[in-house]
């Protein structure tokens, strides 16, 4: 066995005089998956990009040693120098499969390009080889796929295509930059499995970038934890999870999702508490979105009936396109259903003109705040709409800001001056300003870093009790709602396929789809890895 595929010693990256990555030591060997874990801004992606020379033009890369497959990366200056290495020595899979594939070129073209320039294959042979690559990525009807465009593929398929492109040049190092973050949970597992399998079959060394410790636990052989541009700790995966040395690592491990015990032992299920009176009752809600002047349209909601009881939290789970957001829009009055009724506390919900019963916390902390409005004004807007006097508003805003853990002096700030977590707090403050009875949280933490997620969830939990809120908590995977829900409803293709007390759903799922979602939950315990296939080598 030769030396490592990639070796960094004391690597650093500077952009505009600011040191973003420092003192990084890293090694990836053949047939090994090394995970680089960290939250946004930790420098993990920059480090990954530095292996391909894809850093921004203003960035400066320094290292005592930087060797990729025998090439000294420090000597590479021009795009031309790097071109020789890219594709053939190192390949990469990016996070967002849709935007990373060229939308106007066929799949075959995008793979064939690598074969042509990296392996000098003649045209006819390229096609066969490309189809072969796709088949190896377990894609059905590979020959037909060659003539299709990225938008015609599902997210999981696209990521397989990306992997095929990355592997087409037969690289020694594969960089996977959050390859499953943008995918639905049920697909995530398959793609992870494929990466593991590819590494196993080709012996390629994998540098796996992620923020998700449960993914790390499932696939990695070794782990390096990054924070603030430095590697805090590096260890074989088992040792890291069992005996983390750094506080930060410990915290990450603590916050990482675990498979609920009830899933392994249904007898642990606790009986559902007696149902108090229902607060929201949806019956037969159907919504169809028309598609132009002759199209059939898509059925977003198909005869959905759902109940939310006073004081409880309903976890509403569904993958993208399942109709959960449409349901939220209808409940909040943003859209009208084509048919169906809704009772809120016994009254017709759709006839309501008051805003104090229902409020919502949005997923994207960037777009949920008006970028041109001071955050104080955003917070009190619901009150203003109810006619509260101007003088009282400012005091109320100050109270609310402190309630959600922000300084009242932030009233005059604009959203772009705040961090994502702060923005989400503002969104929560706005929703609470009118003391609503029902709060809809649409994936309120999925856009945030792991450590921030915990804070926001804790805040929501505290406020739920304080304001005696009934909550609908929307999520795309079951893993993120176990800890917050009393009851769970699972949606698929516009229908509610399963609804019940939390432990009943997790412990004894009735519907296939629910089972599939449960199966997609990754455990952040390396001992429970479903993919790793061998004993640790180091």
């Amino acid at each position, binding site marked *: 066995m030769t030396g490592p595929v990639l070796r960094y010693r004391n690597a650093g990256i500077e952009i505009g005089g600011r040191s973003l990555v420092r003192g990084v030591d890293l090694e990836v060997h053949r047939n090994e998956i090394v995970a680089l874990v960290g939250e946004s801004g930790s420098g993990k992606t920059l480090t990954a990009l530095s292996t391909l020379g894809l850093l921004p033009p203003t960035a400066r890369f320094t290292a005592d040693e930087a060797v990729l497959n025998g090439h000294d990366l420090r000597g590479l200056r021009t795009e031309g120098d790097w071109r020789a290495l890219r594709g053939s020595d190192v390949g990469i899979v990016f996070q967002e499969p849709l935007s990373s594939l060229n939308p106007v070129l066929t799949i075959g073209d995008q793979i064939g390009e690598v074969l042509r320039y990296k392996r000098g294959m003649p045209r006819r042979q390229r096609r066969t080889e490309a189809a072969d690559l796709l088949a190896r990525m377990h894609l059905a009807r590979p020959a037909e796929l060659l003539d299709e465009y990225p938008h015609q593929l599902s997210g999981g398929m696209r990521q397989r295509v990306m992997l095929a492109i990355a592997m087409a040049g037969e690289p020694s190092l594969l960089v996977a930059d959050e390859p499953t973050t943008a995918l639905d949970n049920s697909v995530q597992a398959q793609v992870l499995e494929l990466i593991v399998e590819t590494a196993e079959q080709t012996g390629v060394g994998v540098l796996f970038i992620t923020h998700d410790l449960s993914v790390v636990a499932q696939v990695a052989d070794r782990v390096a934890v990054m924070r603030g541009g430095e590697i805090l700790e590096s260890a074989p995966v088992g040792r890291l999870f069992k005996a983390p040395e750094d506080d930060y690592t410990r915290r990450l491990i603590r916050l990482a999702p675990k498979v609920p015990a009830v899933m392994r032992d249904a007898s642990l299920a606790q009986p559902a508490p007696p149902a108090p009176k229902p607060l929201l009752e949806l019956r037969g809600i159907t919504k169809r979105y028309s598609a132009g002047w002759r199209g059939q349209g898509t059925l977003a909601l198909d005869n959905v009936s759902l109940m939310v009881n006073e004081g409880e939290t309903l976890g509403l789970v569904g993958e993208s396109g399942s109709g959960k957001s449409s349901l939220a829009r209808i409940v909040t009055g943003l859209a009208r259903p084509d048919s169906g009724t809704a009772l809120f506390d016994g009254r017709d919900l759709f006839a309501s003109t008051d805003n104090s019963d229902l409020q919502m916390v*949005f997923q994207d902390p960037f777009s*949920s705040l008006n970028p041109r*409005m001071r955050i104080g004004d955003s917070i009190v807007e619901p009150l203003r709409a109810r006619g509260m006097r101007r003088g009282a508003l400012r005091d109320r805003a100050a109270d609310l800001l402190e309630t959600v853990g922000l300084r009242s002096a932030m009233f005059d700030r604009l959203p772009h001056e705040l961090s994502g977590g702060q923005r989400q707090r503002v969104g929560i403050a706005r929703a609470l300003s009118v003391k609503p009875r029902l709060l809809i949280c649409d994936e309120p933490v999925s856009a945030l870093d792991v450590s921030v997620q915990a804070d926001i969830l804790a805040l929501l939990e505290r406020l739920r009790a304080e304001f005696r809120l009934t909550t609908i908590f929307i999520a795309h995977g079951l893993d993120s709602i176990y800890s917050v829900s009393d009851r769970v409803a699972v949606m698929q293709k516009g229908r509610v396929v399963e609804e019940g007390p939390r432990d009943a759903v997790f412990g004894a799922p009735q519907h296939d789809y629910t089972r599939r979602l449960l199966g997609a939950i990754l455990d952040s315990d390396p001992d429970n890895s479903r993919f790793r296939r061998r004993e640790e080598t180091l």
Partner: protein
Amino acid sequence: MTDMTETRRAGFFRALLSSRAGMLGAGLLALIVLAALLADWLPIANPTRRSLAIRLLPPIWAEGGVPAHLLGTDAQGRDILARIVHGARSSLIVGMAAVALSGLIGMVLGLIAGMRGGIVDIVLMRIVDAILAIPTMLFMLVVALVAGTGIAPLVLVIAATNWVNYTRIVRAEVLRVKDMDFVAAARISRVGTIPLMLRHIVPNILPAFVVVATLNVGSVILTESSLSFLGFGIQPPAISWGQMLSEGREVLATSWWVSTFPGVALTLTVFSIILLGDWLRDHLDPRLP
């Protein structure tokens, strides 16, 4: 916290100062606007006094030029420099007034089309399509018959056809903004339509709007000169660059200065506006590179 606003404003100027093109545009334009404003107090000749005896004097540096007429005189013996300075007024007034008027109409209708949607939107946009097909000249003739010729009717005419561009842009921007979560949040809170538009929609489409409007001032000034070429622009006794250019082209081959200097003034003005507009776009509108 006003210091925050001031910081932002200072940031705006610092950004302007750091952009060579933006500075060039802003500086030139400021100079032109200043000259137009101060036209009556500048030590220049009376722009309308004609004297056939001194017609077509060349600029001072050419043979036969006289110090009293730095840039020479036109076919009526009027001082070209003075006419350019005074003409700046009409050109700028037409540019700004027409843009303001059409922007206002376009903003209101674009908001209505974008916010209401449905049949209102369809009908409005079909009318927009229709207006685009109708030549400005036809409006010009109607307005000239009804309201006569002059700066105000000219502004009216340009606005009558120009508003459609704004309607389209505003509508497109409204459609972009109105699906954003913060608008949804306001709607959930039952914020009324008017406050919703004023507080959430308008402030967010304003940057794109301002950029388009700035660039539009330049094209409107060019439109005025084109209309002058066709005999429909600003008519004497008012002075405009378009009119000077159009008059001067009759003597272009023999007395180049008569049309060249107003042409240079026009080109410089439009140039500066475009520079400034381009910079504004880069600075204000993060959606464009």
